[in-house]
């Protein structure tokens, strides 16, 4: 907890600066200072509902990113107008071809190398992608 002297020093610094609003939060409390208002509010920090967050974290940990194995232009299907190799929800395994990367007139079929389900397609047809750039988000199943 900040003591009075520290809070006063903070207020003085804030006054002399162009900062309009200052918020400080730690485990036990939250300090909020706003210029122009005469009140200084110190609130006890609320215990964040942690259960949801943990669950979200756990889900995110299961998402694998498939990244580009080379520089190239991304194509989702074998040729324009054809069915894409995968869509959101498609189940894939290590050998599944998921997209094509084109470089210097040579088209390379990219294999997934992981098993799972496509959650998100992170590139679109015609995008120039870098080596290592995320292309697909895959949920392990």
């Amino acid at each position, binding site marked *: 907890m900040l003591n009075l002297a520290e809070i006063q020093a903070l207020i003085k610094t804030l006054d002399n600066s162009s900062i309009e609003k200052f918020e400080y939060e730690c485990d036990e409390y939250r300090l909020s200072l706003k210029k122009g208002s005469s009140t200084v509010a110190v609130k006890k920090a609320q215990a964040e509902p942690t259960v949801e967050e943990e669950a979200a974290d756990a889900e995110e940990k299961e998402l694998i990113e498939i990244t580009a194995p080379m520089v190239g232009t991304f194509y989702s299907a074998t040729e324009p107008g054809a069915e894409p190799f995968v869509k959101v929800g498609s189940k894939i395994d290590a050998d599944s071809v998921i997209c094509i990367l084109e470089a210097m*007139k*040579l*088209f390379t079929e990219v294999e997934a190398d992981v098993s799972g389900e496509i959650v998100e397609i992170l590139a679109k047809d015609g995008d120039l992608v870098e080596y290592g750039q995320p292309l697909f988000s895959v949920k392990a199943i």
Partner: protein
Amino acid sequence: MSFKVLRPGLLSSLQDIGRIGYQKYGINVSGAMDVLSLRLANILVGNKEDEAALEITMTGPTLEFLSDTLIAIVGANLSPVIDGVAVRMNRPVAVKAGAVLKFGACQKGCRAYLAAAGGYDVPEVMGSKSTYLRGGLGGYQGRALQKGDIVDCGKPSSFGEHTLHFLLMKGARSFRIANWFVNPPHMEDANLAAPIRLTKGMQIEAYKDECVEAFLQETFKVTTSADRLGYRMQGPQIELKAPLEMISEVATFGSVQVPPDGNPIILMADHQSVAGYPKIAQVISADLARVAQYKPGSRMSFRLVSIEEAEEICFEQERYLESVKIAVMSKC
């Protein structure tokens, strides 16, 4: 590496880029009708671009591979299948000894090129492995393949050897395709159907203006009299301003000549070394590959371009091939 011909198909003959330098002795150039597909197929298996490949016309052969071979099929989509499984085109394919390659329906185009790593081991006649069918010269014993023929391949380059072993090591029942391929621009639907570009022929002035106009605006049908020597076309009658008696002079692959009956003929790979009919136009070299992919019964239209444009298009095609070569080298 070699294969045995179980069924010859309609017309399967060995062709390279042609027998060059002997027209003055009356020896036709011959060579692949679609040289672009030939060159690409060779690049894919690590051969020299001008190596011979098997030119397959419309109905393909049935071939039994007698040893592990690296092949590539480029050009028309004749539905190639190995031991019952469809084979993707335009990429290296490692085939195991004993596998049987068949072709099915002609889905697009007219001629496909089967290149084998190491090329084909047939004697060179006057510097070329091309078959001049009418003259019984070169290629596989001077003729198209027949049932029972055994065709040997040469020694593959290190790229060919390496790619073959690399693919077979990944596991193959009958064959294994590489996971990379090319997309020949001339075979893309929009490009294939676009008007064939040509420059003015040496005798274009001799033709009636309205006929020249019709030639460039109407569509022409490729008749059934269309073969390696030339494509007889059917459409508006193309007439001369006045009768013209010409001394036979130079004609080449792509020359469009018009005999007295008024129906143009596009001279193709087996064209004669000199021709006596006046020439209205010349197909640009870059578009010869596309003409070769038109079948009897299909319709073709024409567009006039300048020599400069023709050159630029030719350079563009060469730049494309260079890009592919460089990219393929990186796959070693």
